[in-house]
């Protein structure tokens, strides 16, 4: 009997260990699994490496995790944000490392990690500072750089609906990195607004098949980062 549903965000992140690599879904606030991140702050794991497109805003969600100084390093395409000083302050004080990766390379590295591809070549960043130290190679007269697949111990992502087998559908542009992070993580944890029985979803429209998901937790009314920031909320 397969049932991947767990009872709470706390239960879903119970075994995150110090030094773990965690992929965190979201592009801006869309798809950011705030409740899971807050549960991780409560849980206390530290020395984390975070793989995420952004570094959060205000002092909630991912920015709050950074602010709690639980993160040693971020792998990220765009850590700058208009309404948060958390990352800049940590970065300038040398308290956090940054591996800056072009957004498409980040996405492809995650997808490769999940697909068992250890390395691939991309034209992005050739000739730029972000290619420094990377192997360059020509194919058919054009230069590419080699990039490595990325894996993680955990993924914390957000969907709209899942069944208890872990099949997931998403909401609009909140889909973004979640399906590939689910592939690349040993333990993919997803929060969804609604958990349903297997057979409730059309198998043609499942976006992330259950094989990629380890734990499903229902968060019926997830917070929106922009609303929390506008309201001046900080966590914890």
């Amino acid at each position, binding site marked *: 009997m397969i049932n991947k549903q767990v009872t709470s965000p706390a239960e879903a992140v119970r075994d995150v260990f110090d030094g773990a690599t965690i992929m965190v879904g979201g592009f801006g606030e869309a798809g950011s699994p705030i409740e899971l991140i807050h549960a991780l702050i409560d849980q206390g794991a530290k020395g984390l490496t975070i793989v995420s497109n952004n570094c959060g805003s205000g002092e909630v969600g991912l920015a709050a995790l950074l602010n709690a100084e639980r993160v040693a390093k971020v792998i990220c395409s765009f850590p700058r944000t208009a309404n948060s000083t958390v990352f800049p302050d940590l970065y300038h004080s040398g308290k956090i490392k940054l591996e800056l990766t072009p957004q498409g390379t980040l996405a492809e590295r995650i997808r490769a990690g999940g697909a*068992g591809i250890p390395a691939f070549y991309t034209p992005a960043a050739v000739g730029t500072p972000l290619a420094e130290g990377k192997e360059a190679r020509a194919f058919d007269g054009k230069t590419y750089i080699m990039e490595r697949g990325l894996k993680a111990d955990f993924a914390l992502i957000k969907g709209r609906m899942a069944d208890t087998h872990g099949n997931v559908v998403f909401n609009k542009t909140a889909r973004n990195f979640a399906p590939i992070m689910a*592939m690349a993580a040993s333990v993919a944890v997803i929060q969804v607004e609604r958990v349903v029985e297997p057979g409730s979803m059309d*198998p043609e429209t499942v976006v992330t*098949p259950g094989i*990629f998901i380890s734990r499903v937790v229902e968060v019926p009314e997830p917070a929106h980062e922009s609303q929390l920031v506008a309201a001046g909320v900080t966590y914890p």
Partner: protein
Amino acid sequence: MTRQTSQQTPSTETIGWTREQMAQRLAQDIADGSYVNLGIGIPELVAKFVPAGRELIYHTENGLLGMGPSPEPGAGDPELINAGKRQVTANPGAAFFHHADSFAMIRGGHLDLCVLGALQVAHNGDLANWSTGADDAIPAVGGAMDLVAGVKSIYVITQHCTKTGEPKLVEACTYPLTGLGVVNRVYSNLAVIDVTANGFQLVELAPGVDVDTVKQATGAPLLLPASANIGSTK
């Protein structure tokens, strides 16, 4: 499905487990909740024998997780098939996806178990199961090389010897390889045998089969277990 017998003289084909019994024996060893890919032929029989209370999810590399049994006659869809190109059904909780995503599951190590047939298994786990290397054969590999390279555990289900009595468990494969050091366990008509760092390790004998028979039918050294459990079926 009837059991194949051979008219060749000294043969091990007629002793030990039938094909169905081999499949049944293997089915006992699949953990509840496993994601499983069953190869074409004897491996397909495994699904019939999964013990009650265990839920397995079957993957077919042509784009379906949650594959169910054959449809009722006349109820099938020619576009809902398995890797053997036979019509199947989709269970509740199924998902369809394209080929690159399907092999991302395989290559990325997301499947727990793949059960395959074999021409030869070497004592270091090398597998040959896609080609006899005959000059006039049409080469065809399908997904076998991807499956053995990517799936967490590879179980082989096979007659212990060929129809002409040659061992299929060997020192080194002479047929073209499918993968290097990939097989974890062999379920033959004679025995269950693990592939270990030290070579073939006997796990269990089929009823009525003794150790010497298995040794003689095996083309490489056979390590015996410390346990006295040999000879009994679970």
